[in-house]
């Protein structure tokens, strides 16, 4: 691929032709603030936060859309640019209820971070504030339009990535929001509850309801409030408190797409599931099962002790007793009727390592090839 050379903030950079200024800057560790940008979506250029100055250009260019040309000399930050950015953020904050304490996006919210960066607490513009009702009519996605900054990411991800198109801007002017047709509840639209819109929304306007409404954990609320109070992003706050990350990267256990999950766990309870953007099969997108289908892990119906059936009824037992019984029964059967009178079924949901051990058990310990899993079913 053809390479081009550009200079960004005095740093010489090289990149494939066709890259945007933002792509090149981020690849070289230079941060340009953005709000309407998501690498999963085509560039949109609405928020103007990413404006940069290009030598010889007549106007400032939005870095998320503007393709870099060979030899460009680019400045991503200077007094003028920062002044513009500050004003833009102030305008957004002016009609945003900055009640970050209590908002579950606190610590991860892109608007909060920018407001903190530019030292904006309350806007110098005293704008009219919205008073929309919360939309929590379905079990998965809740919407709080009071916090919407009209970046259009939810609309675009639902259309461009999910191919569904549940939302569009409704109403006009100050009252415009990304709504559903005729303000219908989402379960009456073609919504697939993939939660892609949750994953892209930069503010607390769209949130995952299971965790917001039912999964609240005191420790998490405290962290969110602390982030808001000390104006720190979540990672920094965790570090400051000397806490280990509570996020574990793993692979979804539902289907063979193999999406990568970040499981957030507090007090041995899953509080949220997200997916790393631009990583793995899903690139940060999941389906309803991957994003919301993991209540089962902490279900009260989980088996917690071995059970032995005595006179037709299960009784709890010690591991030692249960395993001795199994070993004896399998051993006796093998002795009496031969190894091929025993069958072993492993699982297409178990890990490679466990499957390997189970077939090894069948072959090396029992001495039979009667081992299968349910690939066929």
């Amino acid at each position, binding site marked *: 691929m053809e390479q081009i050379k550009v200079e960004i903030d005095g740093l010489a950079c090289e990149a494939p032709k066709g890259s945007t200024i933002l792509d090149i800057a981020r690849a070289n560790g230079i941060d340009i603030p953005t709000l309407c940008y998501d690498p999963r979506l085509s560039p949109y250029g609405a928020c103007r936060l990413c404006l940069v100055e290009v030598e010889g250009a007549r106007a400032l260019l939005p870095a998320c859309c503007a393709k870099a040309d060979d030899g460009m000399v680019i400045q991503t930050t200077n007094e003028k640019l920062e002044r513009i950015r500050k004003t833009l953020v102030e305008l957004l904050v002016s009609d945003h209820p900055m009640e970050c304490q209590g908002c579950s996006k606190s610590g991860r919210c892109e608007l909060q971070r920018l407001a903190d960066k530019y030292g904006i607490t309350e806007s110098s513009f005293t704008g009219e504030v919205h008073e929309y009702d919360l939309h929590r009519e379905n079990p998965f996605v809740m919407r709080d339009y009071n916090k919407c900054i009209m970046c259009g990411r939810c609309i675009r991800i639902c259309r461009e990535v999910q191919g569904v198109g549940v939302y569009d801007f409704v109403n006009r002017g100050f009252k415009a929001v990304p709504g559903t047709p005729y303000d219908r509840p989402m379960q009456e639209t073609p919504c697939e509850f993939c939660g892609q819109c949750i994953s892209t929304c930069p503010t607390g306007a769209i949130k995952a309801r299971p965790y917001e409404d039912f999964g609240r954990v005191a420790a998490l609320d405290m962290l969110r409030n602390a982030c808001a109070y000390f104006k720190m992003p979540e990672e920094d706050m965790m570090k400051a408190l000397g806490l280990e990350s509570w996020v574990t990267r793993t692979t979804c256990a539902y289907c063979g797409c193999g999406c990568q999950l970040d499981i957030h766990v507090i007090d041995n309870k899953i509080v949220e599931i997200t997916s790393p953007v631009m990583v793995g099969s899903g690139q940060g997108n999941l389906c309803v099962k991957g994003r919301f289908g993991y209540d089962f892990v902490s279900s009260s119906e989980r088996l917690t002790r071995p059970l032995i059936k005595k006179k037709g009824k299960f009784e709890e037992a010690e591991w030692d007793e249960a395993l001795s019984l199994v070993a004896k029964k399998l051993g006796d059967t093998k002795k009496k009727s031969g190894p091929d009178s025993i069958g072993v079924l492993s699982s297409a949901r178990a890990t490679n390592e466990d*499957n390997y051990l189970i*077939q090894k058990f069948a072959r090396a310990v029992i001495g039979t090839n009667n081992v299968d899993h349910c690939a*066929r079913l």
Partner: protein
Amino acid sequence: MDDIETAKAILVIGSNTTECHPIIGLRIKKAVMQNDCKLIVAEPKHIRLCYYADKWLQLKPGTDVALINGMMNVMVEEGLADDPFINDRCECDRYDELKAMLKDYTPEKVSEITGVPADDIREAARTFANADNAAIIYAMGITQHTTGTDNVMTLANLAMMTGNIGKPGTGVNPLRGQNNVQGACDVGALPNVLTGYKPVTDPETREKFEKAWGVKLPEEPGLTATEMMSAAAEGKIKAMYIVGENPMLSDANLHHAEKALKNLDFLVVEDIFLTETAQLADVVLPAASFAEKEGTFSATDRRVQRVRKALDAPGEARPDNEIVADLAKRMGYEMANVEPAAVMDEIASLTPQYGGISHARLDALPDGERLHWPCPDADHPGTPILHTEVFTRGKGWFAPAEWQAPAEQPDKEYPLTLTTGRVLWQYHTGTMTRKSDGINEIDPHGHVWISPDDAEKYGVENGKKAVVTTRRGDIDIEAMVTERVPNGVIFIPFHYVESAANILTNDVVDPVSKVPEFKVSAAKVKAK
């Protein structure tokens, strides 16, 4: 799978991709919406993907081979086959044999069998053959037939004939039902092969494993899951050890499975819930879930990825590796180190395809990078696309397959064709998804889908209970009257205990792959 987006034509057959493999569904949608890809969907019922399709071929259930043969007939007749590829990479006499067989599959004749208009078959053939690169995606709709093996071979014929093998955005891509079917097969959880698909009947293979494991190994292939059930019913299998499976809901012909399991002298089940199968057990062992242990899964595209422990298992539940090792020890066999990372090293040492894979290597991969087997050694970058140069067996081998009618045809008594499958909201036998309050709220119970005409004919009303009967049994289930199924066909998802579709299905199996014919049974329906 990452390269699916670059395909210029995609044939999706027997796969409700957006619901069963949603993220691969996204890639297909993206190809269509942003890459000008032509999408052909061959599927009896209307699925979401049909909204994105250029052509929806609404074939009768169980007529896939006829349809594909018909498309290939058009390609031969109109000179659309990729002759250079065939001459170069395939066995030419086999191709001649295929051509001879295809003569009978004129679009008109195929139209009669499949119910798809002849011109649609022609157009689909042209679209597929004329695309620069074209991919085929199939799932259980193809394999769950008595002719499943023929179905897959026919798709391979189509891909080879059009030169769509071994480059990005092409190939015959199976989508497996459960998350780690690929991995379970790779590591030898099959009755006829050890890890890496090495046959148990091969003395050299056995010798290698015997040396590694320090025991003598059985020489004869064992029984498949379905065969084990029959053997249990006949009293030949006396004891079973079932780990994380729920055959009581997933087996075709549930009544048969229940009888088989009840007939056992001893049943031990290891699972995270007291499933329908576990309830029949003599001993139930509580296991850790995937979120509570370390390991790897192999995705449907052979990508090996890490599973990591995010939380502690509840109560005394233990991970499978510990349980199996403990049990082995009590039976007099010491399994060396069963820490998952060490087990992967053992797999790698015995399995050339996994030779270069280790937990350490996977953990060190930068974000966004991945490792696909075959990966023979630690320096090998992995193989995202198979068959780029030569086929595993040398030259491409056409395997002509004639269409055969499904084992059970509708008749006077059972006039409808029942097919089963999945819906987006639920997963497999529902042991996991049905514990989610949210999912239950959106999708509380199963439905039988029936066309408006059939509903009227059999007096069934939308939202009211109906009774569906096949030769194996009957179930009560709410009716959903919808144009998404054609006349003569009804559809039931199999996730729900209280209306278990697999009470109805046929356990006749494909003679080679032993997959039961879930997709087609003859049925009748009436109002309850």
